[in-house]
Every structure is written in C-alpha cells, then in structure tokens.
C-alpha cells in the first residue's frame, strides 16, 4: 500500500474507459446507463484518490490522530453519489417512456424508426 504512485489514476482511467465503451458501443439504453454509472464511479474514485493521504485517518476528529485525509472530496462525492442515483432514475424513467412510445430500447432501431417517420 505504500507505493501506490500513479497506479490509482490508471485504475480510474481503465474503469472510466470501460464505462465509456459501454456507453458508445452498446445499443441497449439500459446498458448505456450502466456504462454511465461505471463512468461515474470512476470519477468518484478519482476524487477520493486525490483526497487520500498516506498514513492518514478517516476525517473524524479523535484524540491522538494527527493526519487526516482530505474531507473536501469526500463531501463532494457523497452528495454526488446521491444526486447520481437520482439522475440515473431520471434516465431510467426516460427509457421506460421510450419503450412505451417506440416499443424498443435499442438505439439502432430507434434511429431507424425516426428516419422512417
């Protein structure tokens, strides 16, 4: 654990790219949302890795602990997670509506229907 170096960032990037791939390469809209969620989590990791301090403790003040990790990214990400799920729900609601309107949730089919109409 002592020589993380840039390793964390690379993991973040890898996860991010997996999410991005799911978003741009897959047709199913729910799958795209899953990809977005992965991407989102990668961003969370990025922030939390930034806030990490070696030998630090969780930012809850207690006796005899001198070094804490940075609380600011924690706050930002904490709210971002909840907001993230709310927006995901919005996206899913859209998917449900699209399904009801078009009878499909596949991007290609949707495009075809739109161009036909």
């Amino acid at each position, binding site marked *: 654990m002592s020589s*993380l170096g840039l390793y964390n960032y690379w993991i973040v990037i890898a996860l991010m790219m997996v999410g991005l791939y799911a978003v741009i390469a897959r047709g199913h809209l729910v799958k795209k949302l899953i990809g977005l969620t992965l991407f989102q989590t990668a961003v969370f990791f990025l922030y939390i890795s930034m806030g990490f301090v070696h030998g630090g403790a969780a930012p809850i003040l207690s006796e005899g602990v001198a070094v804490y990790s940075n609380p600011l990214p924690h706050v930002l990400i904490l709210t971002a997670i909840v907001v993230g799920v709310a927006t995901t729900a919005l996206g899913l609601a859209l998917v449900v509506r699209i399904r009801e309107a078009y009878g499909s949730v596949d991007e290609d089919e949707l495009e075809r229907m739109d161009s036909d109409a």
Partner: protein
Amino acid sequence: MLVTALFVVRTRDLLAATMLLGAYSLLSAGMFMVLDAVDVAFTEAAVGAGVSTILMLYALVASGRFERTPTRPQWLPLLVVLATGAALVWGTFDLPPVGAPGNPVHQHVAPRYLQQSGAEIGIPNVVTSVLASYRGYDTLGETAVVFTAGLGVWLLIGGLQRRGAAAPVLASAPHANLILRVVSKFLIPVILLFGLYVQFHGELGPGGGFQAGVILASALIVHLQVFGADQTRQIVPESLLRVLAPLGVLLYGGTGVAGLLLGGNYLDYHPLGRTPVGGQHLGILLVELGVALTVSSTMLLLCYLFAARVARR
C-alpha cells in the same frame, strides 16, 4: 488489486450486469473504505447496492432483459476508447503521486477545515461539518437537484395512473413466503432504527442526512418488495411523500432564511443558538433533517413510481 476484477463486470447480459453492478458497488465502497473515505463508503453502499440496483431492475422489467447482439462494427468505439484512455494516461504523468501529503489538493482549504472545524463547529465528523456548514450552499443545491430529479421522474412516468387497472405484477405479493415475511417484519423496525441512529449520530461518526435518508427509504423498500406496493402505500401514502420531499428542501432553505432574519448571512448558523457553536449544532441538525426528509421521500417516491409503471404493463 481488487479493482482488476471489476473489468469483467461489464461484459454480460443485462440482468447479470445489474446484479454485478450491485456487487461492483459494494466492492467500490470497500475501496472507498481503504482510501479512508468512510462517509463516502457509507453512501455508496446504501445507494449503489440498494436503491440503484432496485431501480435498474424495475427498468429491466419494463424494457426487456436481453440485449440484441450488436450490429454495428465494434472496432470504432474500441479505438476511440483506447485513444482516449491513452491520452488520459499520458496526462497522469503530470500528476503528483497519490497520497503524498504535499499535494496541491491538500494545501487549499482542507487544512483549515481540519484544524478549525473542531473549534468553530464543535463536532468530530469533519465531513458533516463541511457538508452542512462550510459548503452549505452546495448541499442545498444537491438537495434541490435530488428533489428536482424526483419531480422529473414523476412528470415522466407518474401520470396516467388511473387509466385501467391492469393486473399488477410486481405490485402484488402473490407468494412471498412466510419466513421472509416474518423476518422482514422483524427487520424493518431495526432498519428504521438504524437509519435514525445514522441520522443523529452523523455528527460523531460516519453518517448524516443523505445516508440516513437512503436507509430509511430502503427499509420501506424491503416492505414494498416483500408485502407489495399496495400495502406500503397504505402505510406511507404517495401524497405524503409528495409533501415531504419539498418540505425537506424548504426546511433547508428556511434554516438559511432564519439565519438571515436573525442577523447573519444566508446559511450562516451562528445566530441560531445562544453561542456560535450551539447555533452551528442546531443549524446542522435542521439541515440534515431536511436532507434526510427530501432524500428518503424522493427515493421511496421513485420506487413507487417505477413499481406502479411496471405493474401497469
């Protein structure tokens, strides 16, 4: 280390993907623990593994489980992704190493938060004090966003509920079995109690309004899953949720206005109590209460809406 396993998460059919997303969420929460972000791990576990999985499942019921095999060429997105990834990796070489205490991130406002908040606000959990007090505006905004998202979902799929009584599928509980029922009956109060503990203990340990809201909601979601949405609606009617969600935002904003009226700045809690620290305590308590109200009712409302929508099909 752990994370390498996560790569596999994505390459599956949709139901499996959703389940694995739940496991992935737990795992990432574990990573947050390792990186000393206890509060974040708390939230991620409550939200990612619980509510988000459930919403995804509902959406899957509504939209079909299997993905068709891709027809478009797959190499182009792959190429784009690899190129972007390579560019980003190249970018990381300018970043300071993770975890060094001298990084620029740790020089700006964080030391002040860590050193002063004990005296200024008087609660041990720095995350809570930053969340509710120093960056109160942000949190107000986030709460409003959650509320707005709930509103949006309601507008999108909430209407048309009176049209025809289709045979409810997920909404009824045809054969939830006895043991599950009994244990759930026993567990739900425990979960609610735990949510309240998290709510009011959030100043001392990990926890706070967001997490407590999600936990409270998930207790009722268990009820919804086991006993069916109709019964849950009888306990917590949807109209009540529609009142509670904006009430939380109002409580938050109203706390700010109260500070304003008592001669401070907006969202400045000092004037609320006799001593500044006491005012901070009261302010944070109220604000967190508002957050918990909004979050829990919005989450539950989301589940109601999705369940109703799914049942109507």
